[in-house]
């Protein structure tokens, strides 16, 4: 009962099957959703635009910002935490980046500052949770508005607009659906997202730190008794997650070319939803990067599919809600079957 439920603690063969099981569920759902929309779209008299490369590029580009932030959120949720400030931190990072560009600093400095802001914000979250012994939900509920306020303070409550000449060309192309080199298929930002995903996934699965993350999420007191430095691990998790939120801020800025203090408000919810649809458990100890990416894609496919089928926004919102509840229900049924 109290043993760690980490994949790494299991024998290798069993580990493989479990990985397949956790990742497969959301993936089947993604294939289903894509299939259903593709068929329905083709049945329309003026349809046939859904299952196209152009639309696939859109789906990946549109989900990239949420997905990259969800990489960090996956770690946090596995460790038994939550980060409600992810959305406003994202906007804060974009504001800082835009501010440095506007003041004439080179892009490398601006990007570093933006990513650093994300790390710092995550570090503060982790430290407050560890020091104050207040649950992550409350701490990050507080820092959510603190970071929103800071963003407004830096931007004087308005858009931070660097001149077009101050924004480097690579930033425009980072997430542009007009891919410069056709062989790349997707813009660089999507590839960067996939590379980061592979890195985090490997870290969670094969490093001691990764096992510790699963351990404190599965059973914190057992983890402590086993000699894991829980506060240190927690602060590290939130700081790394902050870095990914910083990357999401960079993505958002690359798409908007302005820093908007309100652009992150509410964005934490799709980020959390991506993790949950992907099989992450809010009680900690479970979650996978492949699942999270799939979760982010599912939401975007529904959005794009509803546009193809000329559905208004409220239908899209209802379908996403149904998917979230269904995904978690199916996942629980599966877990119960797996349990001894």
């Amino acid at each position, binding site marked *: 009962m109290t043993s760690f439920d980490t994949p790494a603690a299991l024998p290798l063969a069993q580990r493989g099957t479990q990985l397949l099981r956790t990742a497969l569920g959301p993936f089947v759902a993604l294939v289903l959703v894509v299939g259903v929309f593709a068929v329905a779209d083709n049945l329309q008299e003026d349809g046939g635009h859904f299952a196209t490369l152009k639309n696939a590029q859109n789906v990946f580009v549109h989900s990239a910002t949420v997905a990259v932030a969800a990489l960090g959120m996956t770690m946090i949720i596995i460790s038994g935490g939550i980060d409600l400030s992810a959305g406003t931190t994202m906007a804060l990072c974009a504001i800082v980046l835009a501010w440095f560009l506007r003041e004439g600093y080179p892009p490398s400095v601006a990007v570093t500052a933006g990513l650093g802001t994300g790390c710092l914000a995550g570090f503060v979250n982790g430290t407050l949770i560890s020091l104050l012994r207040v649950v992550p939900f409350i701490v990050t509920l507080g820092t959510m508005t603190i970071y929103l306020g800071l963003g407004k303070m830096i931007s004087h409550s308005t858009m931070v607009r660097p001149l077009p000449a101050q924004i480097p060309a690579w930033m425009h192309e980072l997430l542009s659906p007009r891919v410069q080199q056709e062989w790349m298929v997707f813009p660089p930002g999507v590839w960067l997202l996939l590379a980061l995903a592979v890195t985090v996934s490997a870290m969670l699965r094969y490093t001691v730190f990764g096992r510790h993350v699963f351990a404190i999420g599965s059973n914190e007191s057992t983890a402590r008794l086993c000699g894991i430095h829980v506060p240190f691990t927690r602060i590290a998790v939130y700081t790394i997650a902050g870095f990914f939120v910083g990357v999401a801020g960079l993505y958002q800025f690359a798409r908007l070319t302005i820093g908007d203090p309100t652009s992150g408000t509410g964005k934490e919810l799709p980020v959390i939803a991506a993790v949950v649809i992907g099989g992450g458990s809010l009680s900690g100890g479970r979650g996978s990067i492949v699942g999270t990416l799939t979760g982010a894609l599912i939401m975007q496919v529904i959005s794009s599919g509803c*546009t193809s089928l000329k559905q208004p926004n409220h239908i899209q919102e209802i379908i996403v809600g*149904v998917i979230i509840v269904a995904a978690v229900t199916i996942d629980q049924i599966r877990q119960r079957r797996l349990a001894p």
Partner: protein
Amino acid sequence: MHRYALSGLLILLVAACDRAGESASSLRTDAHSGNKTLRIAVIPKGTTHVFWKSVHAGALKAAQELGRVEIQWKGALLENDREGQINVVQDFVAQAVDGIVLAPLDSTALVPAVVQAREAGIPTVIFDSGLADESVTVSYVATDNYNGGAIAAREIGNRLDGKGNVILLRYNVGSESTEQRERGFLETMRKEFPGIKMLSDDQYSGTTPLEAQNKALELCNQFGDKLDGFFSVCEPNTMGVLGALEQEGLAGKVKFVGFDPGPQLVQALADKKIHGLVLQDPVAMGYESVKTLVAHLRGEKVQKRIPTGEIMATPENMNDPQIKKLLDPEQAN
């Protein structure tokens, strides 16, 4: 067991899509085939405000009159979500619609998306708020906001017989349309009513009625005893100022002109607590935008700038049929 659950989900989705097909085809204004139906995407700034529902009504009216035009109405999920609006534009480009009608949430952030549409051969008509680069669009359909501010200045100036103390409460930094109104108001005041003194013209109300009310209360406390006129530049701002004037017992005494209607503001106009409301014509905006875009698609030459008019509603003229219609414009469901 989860297989059953999954197939249940699948059935749900298929059912939803089936319904989708039905409602989409019933929307089509012309069922007979023959010429191709033009698919026009209309993208507002938000989808819940009354103003946009009126724009939608105008767009549908134009589609009906033109025939063989289908309106696809879609905004971002969250109001004021610039990234979401970019996604919507890019989605419609992938859908290969025939044309896009867009009220950009931001004058610069939406430019790349409009350029992408253009490169894909999809023309865009802009309405309500301007785009920084007008060379990439077909036309710009909007209220002349500068003139809206100017007629507000004349209304207050004439009601005060050219002398007195007036406050202008600005809206928000970086909002293009309201900045035009503020500029039109101040320049007209200075030019045509030299006897009128501006007590304050550098304060911003913020975007909600509550923020506006707090700011207006501060101004009333500071200048209340010598205040003769007040101009607020948009609906939430006007709501806030009205609340503040009522609290301070100044409503009705101070000549107060606002912008855009709303049920409470129309009532205040009838009660003579507001002496003027500058009205825009959102129905005409939707109507003219779609008409212009279709004309362009059919190879006709169109004007680069189409004003939809602005008019002053006062307690005296508010029952004229034309004004009455603008005070309570039609809405799409």
